[in-house]
């Protein structure tokens, strides 16, 4: 089916993009890769009178290593992240997620900025960025501001950005020397969303966990940290007993609902198992066996 009729703009400058968004408040929307938006338009779930494409704005696709972290341009496609040696080495959690996102054809077009701005709690990157403690540069009429990933996702399909603001860059800070992360995703087939997925990022001193971030996908109305489970890990050596306790806490504090992907009970059990697996994987990547 064709998408509903819309006006299309493809300006070459980011300020022009913001001007068009400001001219049609609430009626204009950014088109990044379109791998979520175009299916929504085609199925007529959404109708957007004014689409503003970022495709002609130069310089929004890059993965750069800085002193304090890695900077990623908002229009960087998922497959470029998946194939980035820098990401694989520094942030295996993100590498895990990009390799499992949708399918290879979608990953060749879908962008990190689109994935995050869409704020679908079934998308993988929101949980990943929250777990990694990423920061988002957001540009509007009065210049740029920074929003922490954990404050960015307000609700399903709702972010902390104003209607005329655009996400331009993601910064992932480096974690301590002894740190590691993992993303474990449980899905029944390629073309469906996950039943559940979990992002875990840990930092350790000796055998003791000093910092733990856990965030989930597909099992809550918005992506957020699982603080009660994190608190079980922090300050302790991560024995099987501690790991199991934290995994059970994630399963208990998530908010899954019964839907065609499974019953609430089933999803909690999946979540418990994949959290246990993700913590173990993160731990081994941090150099602890």
């Amino acid at each position, binding site marked *: *089916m*064709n*998408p*509903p*009729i*819309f*006006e*299309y703009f*493809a300006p070459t400058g980011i300020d022009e993009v913001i001007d068009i968004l400001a001219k049609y408040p609430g009626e204009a929307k950014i*088109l990044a890769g*379109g*791998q979520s938006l*175009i*299916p929504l*338009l*085609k*199925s007529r779930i959404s109708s957007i009178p004014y*689409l503003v*494409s970022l*495709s002609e704005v130069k310089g929004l696709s890059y993965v750069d290593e800085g002193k304090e972290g890695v900077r990623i341009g908002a229009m960087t496609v998922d*497959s470029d992240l998946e194939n980035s040696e820098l990401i694989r080495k520094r942030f295996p959690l993100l590498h895990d997620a990009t390799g499992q996102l*949708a*399918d*290879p*054809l*979608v990953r*060749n*077009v879908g962008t990190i900025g689109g994935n995050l701005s869409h704020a679908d709690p079934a998308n993988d990157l929101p949980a990943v960025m929250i777990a990694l403690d990423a920061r988002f540069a957001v540009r509007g009429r009065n210049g740029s501001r920074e929003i922490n990933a954990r404050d960015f996702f307000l609700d399903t399909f709702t972010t902390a950005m104003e209607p005329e603001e655009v996400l331009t860059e993601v910064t992932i800070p480096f974690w301590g020397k002894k740190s590691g992360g993992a993303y474990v995703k449980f899905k029944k087939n*390629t*073309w469906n969303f996950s039943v559940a997925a979990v992002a875990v990022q840990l930092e350790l001193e000796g055998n003791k966990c000093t910092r733990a971030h856990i965030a989930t996908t597909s099992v809550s109305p918005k992506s957020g940290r699982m603080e009660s489970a994190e608190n079980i890990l922090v300050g302790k050596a991560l024995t099987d007993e501690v790991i199991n306790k934290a995994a059970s806490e994630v399963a208990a504090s998530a908010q899954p609902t019964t839907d065609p992907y499974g019953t609430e009970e089933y999803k909690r059990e999946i979540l418990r198992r994949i959290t246990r697996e993700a913590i173990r994987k993160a731990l081994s990547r941090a150099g602890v066996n």
Partner: protein
Amino acid sequence: MVSKKHISITVNGEVKETEVEPRMLLAHFLREVAGLTGTHIGCDTTNCGACTVIMDGKAVKSCTILAVQANGKKILTIEGLSKGREKLHPVQQSFVDKHGLQCGYCTSGMILTSYWLLKNRKNVTEEEIRAAISGNLCRCTGYDNIVESIKDASKKMEEEGDPIEEHPEIKVRA
């Protein structure tokens, strides 16, 4: 009235310039404007990959890209693989030799995804093949023969090379 947009897309080496409605999908542009009906549309939900084409060196779903987004880009469709030559492209020939198709509906997408994979990876493993075609559905479920075809194509590409390389006007960087 929504204003039409002027676009110029290079399809299999030929520049196609026209005015289109912004909502026109690339798949519809290829089939209805360029007249290349080898690109199939097998779903309306971005799941099946029958519409796969190569855009600037990457395999993509042409039903989930607007024609206006492809402005200025180079597209390779199934017709481009053996364009101007009597012989089939090695990847096409492998699908014939190893019975990699039943009804044929998914085949052009399968072949273009395979071509993209084989241009980027040498000595592909079965695991890599299965991962690469995970976005392409065969509703006859003939996956084993498709995987065999791609293994065979990998060998043929090694031995015979890629005939598209000899046609810079068709070649898209991959």
